[in-house]
């Protein structure tokens, strides 16, 4: 007999070992998230996927599904909290959408749309962050980094390279590059790596490919972030062919295809 959990009153099945997020995605239920990608180990850092599990708040990407859980997800109260988290993500970096090549393809922006975010609410931090344009094909603009560690995990778990890591704490937290000089050009990242394509915001961009798809016809101009099968759509851009992964993490995930 299938084990089940209830999300917003809807009973859905889950397999042993699945998180609430895994079970929800498999059942086409959208729980807003930024730092989670099926196939990569869960991180639990963005907190957008916070749900109420039997009355207690938990990150659905790290919380294992268990028989009999009653989960609240799409409620006005939770979405309001998620909107506040999204506003904080916007104001603590330099997320100036009109000047970003990623606009329309940016998951942070799309979540802002999904949650009806109209403004940043809080005073802007306008932090000064370093841009690394040293690499011939990639550019790293830390202004937009939201520390989701998707590139860190993709490089480690899929590319087998360990190019990225997060260093520092609080407002001084930043993405570092594993190379003798700390520059992207001196690392072993390549254009075909998943880490080069997985960034949900415009922090890691591919050079020489700006504005190929006009604004208005980009991913989130045509799709809502709440479409749970969107990962395939987004990654049609990715030119990742590395299937030689021994971690087993990505099995069954979109990157395992």
């Amino acid at each position, binding site marked *: 007999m299938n084990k089940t959990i209830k999300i917003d009153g809807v009973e859905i099945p889950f397999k042993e070992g699945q998180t609430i997020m895994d079970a929800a995605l498999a059942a086409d239920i959208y729980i807003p998230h930024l730092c989670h990608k099926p196939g990569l180990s869960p991180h639990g850092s963005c907190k957008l996927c916070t749900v109420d599990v039997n009355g207690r708040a938990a990150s659905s990407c790290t919380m294992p599904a268990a028989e009999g859980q009653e989960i609240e997800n799409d409620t006005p109260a939770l979405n309001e909290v998620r909107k506040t988290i999204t506003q904080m993500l916007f104001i603590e970096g*330099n997320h*100036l*959408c*009109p000047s970003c090549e990623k606009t329309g393809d940016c998951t942070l922006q799309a979540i802002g749309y999904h949650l009806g975010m*109209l*403004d*940043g609410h809080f005073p*802007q931090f*306008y932090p000064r962050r370093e841009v690394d344009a040293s690499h011939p094909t990639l550019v790293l603009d830390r202004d937009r980094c939201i520390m989701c560690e998707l590139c860190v995990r993709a490089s480690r778990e899929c590319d087998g390279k360990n190019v990225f890591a997060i260093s520092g704490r609080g407002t001084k937290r930043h993405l570092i590059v594993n190379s003798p000089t700390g520059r992207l050009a001196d690392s072993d990242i390549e254009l075909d790596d998943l880490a080069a394509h997985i960034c949900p915001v415009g922090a890691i961009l591919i050079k020489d490919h700006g504005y190929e798809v006009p*604004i208005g016809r980009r991913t989130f101009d045509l799709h809502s972030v709440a479409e749970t099968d969107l990962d395939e759509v987004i990654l049609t851009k990715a030119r990742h062919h590395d299937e030689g992964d021994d971690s087993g993490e990505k099995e069954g995930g979109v990157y395992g295809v």
Partner: protein
Amino acid sequence: MTPVKKREAYTVSKVRVATTSLAGCFGCHMSFLDMDERIVGLLEHVEFSRSPINDIKHCEPCDIGLIEGALCNADNVHVLKEFRENCKIVIAVGACAINGGVPAMRNHFTLQECLEEAFLDEIGVDNPHIPNDVEIPLLLSKVHPIHEVVKVDYYLPGCPPSADAFLKILTDLLEGKEPSLPKEMLHYD
């Protein structure tokens, strides 16, 4: 017995709207005008006070103030405060007013670096000197969105917001409804 006053001509009082551009590119105003002939219908209910559309320079008491652009100098702050004092409803229009937008990209640098680049070091600069005239408003050390200085009632995101979005928010307000943007009109770019 008090004399019966002669009945005056019946006039519908129009909603007074003021608009301005602070540190911005006027793109939001251009987008506003993109509503084309629909502006005629709007003008049956609305009259413009201070606005670049009619070149009135000061904001009189108004119902709605549409503000495009961020704050980059002392005059921007002065104009913004004049709007807030005179407008019942202030709407932050466009990315610059809401989060600083493109003008805020200068926040990556010091004011000195910006001035030196623009007026001393830039290629093709003739007679290099940093302008210093009492007529020129003092620059703020950083560009700020308008909600950091005055209370903003509503936000209309976009770079620029579409003419449809302008029309939607104004129509909602004219009908006495709480303004809301449908999902397809919500854009930050």
